[in-house]
């Protein structure tokens, strides 16, 4: 995860982004809040869609920065 990815998360709070994780999940998430101040930074999001079973669409989850490979905005 790069600084640009972190910046992308911050700029898209309350918006949807595409996130790729280290364990192969590609998900569309609506960002709730980005916690990047502490020793274990993570992001809270509402799950829009995912390619991995076991997660409930519309529910909220937390994802650690260390598990994120890349972040891309879904809106121009």
């Amino acid at each position, binding site marked *: 995860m790069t600084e640009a990815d972190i910046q992308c998360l911050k700029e898209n709070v309350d918006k949807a982004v595409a996130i790729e994780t280290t364990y192969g999940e590609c998900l569309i998430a609506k960002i*709730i*809040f980005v916690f990047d*101040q502490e020793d274990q930074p993570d992001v*809270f999001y509402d799950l829009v869609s995912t390619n*991995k079973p076991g*997660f409930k669409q519309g529910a909220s989850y*937390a994802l650690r920065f260390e*598990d994120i490979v890349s972040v891309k905005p879904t809106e121009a």
Partner: protein
Amino acid sequence: MFSTACSTNPCFLRPRSPGKERDQESGNDYFGARYYGSNGGRFLTPDFGGMIEGSPDPVPWATFRNPQTLNLYSYVTNNPLTRRDEDGHVQVCGNQYATMNGDGATVVHANCTEQPDSFFQTMVTAASNWHQNQLNQMNGPPQMQMDIVYPVDLGALESLGESIENILAKAESTVGNQSVRVANRQVAEQAAKEWVGEDAEAIPDTHGGKSGGQAGMKSAGGTKIARTTSAATKGYINLVNKATGGNLHVRW
């Protein structure tokens, strides 16, 4: 000069009241360990215990309980009316005094009120050992130590830090990152519950692709978030106010 007059005046050539010998040429009094400069009113050398062979403490007579003893040149801690010096060291109280032997151990000759710290430590240790021996004789040696769990009084804990009421008020008005301190984790968790409300939605941690422990919770409207951590040793909880963009770190 006053000092010259004093050293040549016959009335000052008599032995001092402790009976120490005075050098007629220099006017200094010989106290055994050190010379006392009668003209200057102080010893000529500091009261170093290190001058005694084998002494483990360089300044055994100095103690923070009596700052006067930190002046290593003074005569009987500047209190000659009630104290006197036997051998060039300051530990003399009236007719009672303590000295150090050749091995560096303190030898108390009487009940002096200003003995070195090591003497008091020895006395405390001896008293503690005696007390434990008495207990062992009555009850036998200690078998096991039991953990005692006390009921937690949240009201009492709050008094050690910010109250929950104050935390919630700050979370309402916080803009950006701020921090408050509470007594312990229980107070922080109680504040988090009250912050998000009773109908809060739990937010699980997806670390490693598995939905694990609870990472936080959000209010029904989604404007209030509390972020906890799975590790019990973490020292903070975040209270987020999305209306203001505030992130209040509640630490313990």
